[in-house]
């Protein structure tokens, strides 16, 4: 079974987010980007299926900042094939555009299942996986916490929270939004990624032009002015520790 895992570079949220001049999006120029953490989970789950001997794994990424690093890292982890869809994506890509590009690519390349991260922090216009499934007209199962072989298809565990989940059987091509792999993503040393880079092996395909009619306009983005903010404690570690003890005693939490 051929599994395709789309990879997306996302803003590293640990960084300070500055807005562009129009305040309609983050100023991308000075940000660092890393692989979307849920795509990393999707990749791990796909590699587990490969390890089980039932799948080959193709990773595909748009030409976004540092995507090569993520694609080669996937190859170093054991992916069979890596594809870069080239084009100018420096201004960011909406989920609908991403999904339309991926749908076009997948219709040409063939696939049995798409495993994609359940979301990215930038999915303002929805989760790309669901839109992709809709465009391809195949079943979608999202918030998956396990994807395992079952007969000729897959068994997908779909999580609802508070420990409740459903197991579903899926036959035929499908898009699965992965929340968490059955195990933590495998680690690959930087030396192996460098070696993979040295070997090359990334195929480049120009991203198709897609027509994505707009229905939405971002008027502005802003940092939420929250109605409250924590009272910040200062004065060094010991002073803060002493103050916390005082607070929880005052509140009667400590008996």
């Amino acid at each position: 079974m051929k599994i395709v895992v789309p990879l997306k570079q996302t803003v590293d949220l640990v960084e300070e987010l500055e807005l562009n001049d129009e305040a309609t999006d983050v100023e991308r120029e000075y940000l660092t980007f890393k692989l979307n953490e849920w795509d990393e989970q999707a990749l791990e789950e796909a590699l587990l299926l490969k390890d089980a001997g039932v799948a080959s794994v193709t990773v595909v990424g748009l030409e976004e900042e540092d995507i090569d690093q993520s694609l080669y890292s996937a190859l170093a982890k054991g992916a069979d094939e890596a594809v870069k869809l080239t084009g100018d994506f420096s201004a960011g890509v909406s989920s609908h555009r991403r999904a339309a590009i991926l749908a076009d690519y997948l219709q040409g390349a063939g696939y049995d299942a798409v495993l994609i991260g359940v979301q990215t922090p930038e999915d303002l216009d929805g989760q790309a996986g669901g839109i992709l499934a809709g465009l391809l007209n195949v079943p979608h199962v999202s918030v998956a916490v396990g994807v395992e072989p079952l007969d000729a298809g897959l068994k997908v565990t779909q999580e609802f929270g508070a420990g409740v989940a459903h197991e579903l059987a899926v036959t035929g091509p499908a898009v699965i939004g992965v929340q968490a792999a059955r195990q933590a993503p495998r680690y690959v040393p930087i030396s192996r990624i460098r070696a993979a880079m040295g070997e090359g092996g990334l195929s480049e395909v120009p991203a198709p032009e897609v027509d994505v009619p707009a229905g939405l306009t971002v008027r502005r983005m802003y940092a939420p002015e929250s109605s409250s903010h924590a009272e910040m404690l200062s004065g060094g570690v010991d002073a803060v520790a002493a103050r916390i003890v005082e607070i929880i005693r005052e509140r009667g939490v400590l008996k």
Partner: protein
Amino acid sequence: MSQEIFVLVEHHNGEVTDATHECLGQAEALGGPTVAVLLHSGERALADGLYADRVLSVDDAAFSHFLPEAYAAALAALVRDRDPRLVLIANSTVGIDVGGPLSARTGRPLVAYCKGLAVEGDTILATSQVYGGKLNAEVEIAGPAIVTMVAGATAPAEGSPGSVEDVAAPELGGLQTRFLTRIEPDGSDVDITGEEILVSVGRGIGGEDNIGLAQELADAIGGTVSGSRPVTDAGWLAKTRQVGKSGRKVKPKLYLACGISGAPEHLEGMSDAELIIAINTDEKAPIFDVAHYGSTEDLFDLLPALTEALEGVTA
């Protein structure tokens, strides 16, 4: 386009979710008319608990459990047929699952992580949470659209149940997805929803080897260790200890958040705690917006200091 606002009714085991009632409340606040869409198998009576102008009841064996493929197909057929102005769906597993397919199948835009909607002339203005809750986006919706609403954003609907209209299910033959089993919660561990003091750790704790720091503090304070999703996904803590949207919703007397950024999915599970104290080196972390007290000290310094200070008190 009609002016109706559709709300997808999410129900499990015979119970309609709170988030559904919140979506109905939002629809009502926009002025309606509010139409609850109830996909079910022999559970028409659920309509009695829905405060909407109308309820569309679609009964089919395929809806005996949430089956993504059947839901997406039925919703798309209804939306094409009735052409509502908006479709509101909770941003739960169900909303995350069917929002995208519905958008693509009906050619309507999708606004995700919505915290609130307002009418502005002919336009509807949505406010969405983006970048892990660090930013809000204000989005103008010109025509019809699909919106997934975050939990807790609006008050639940009030009023009285609407009239029920029975609608025939669309042709649902040839489904490629089949329900197998429902997995129930694991009851073998402590139930963190019953604990009064939670020392909760996030990715900032760095690794399984450091959980001991939180455990020592929990022991000193008489509490229990819980954590954010990445911590349980990585196996540093048991899944039963997870707080948040897909974990447990907790309301302890004290919630000490250590190395947790405060993503919306985490806040969903703990923002009602009576006293929240957050420790996070990033002064802009959203957790500080819900915490009562905060410190930007490094947790690796502060947790041991706090343990020591507490041992001084309780000894």
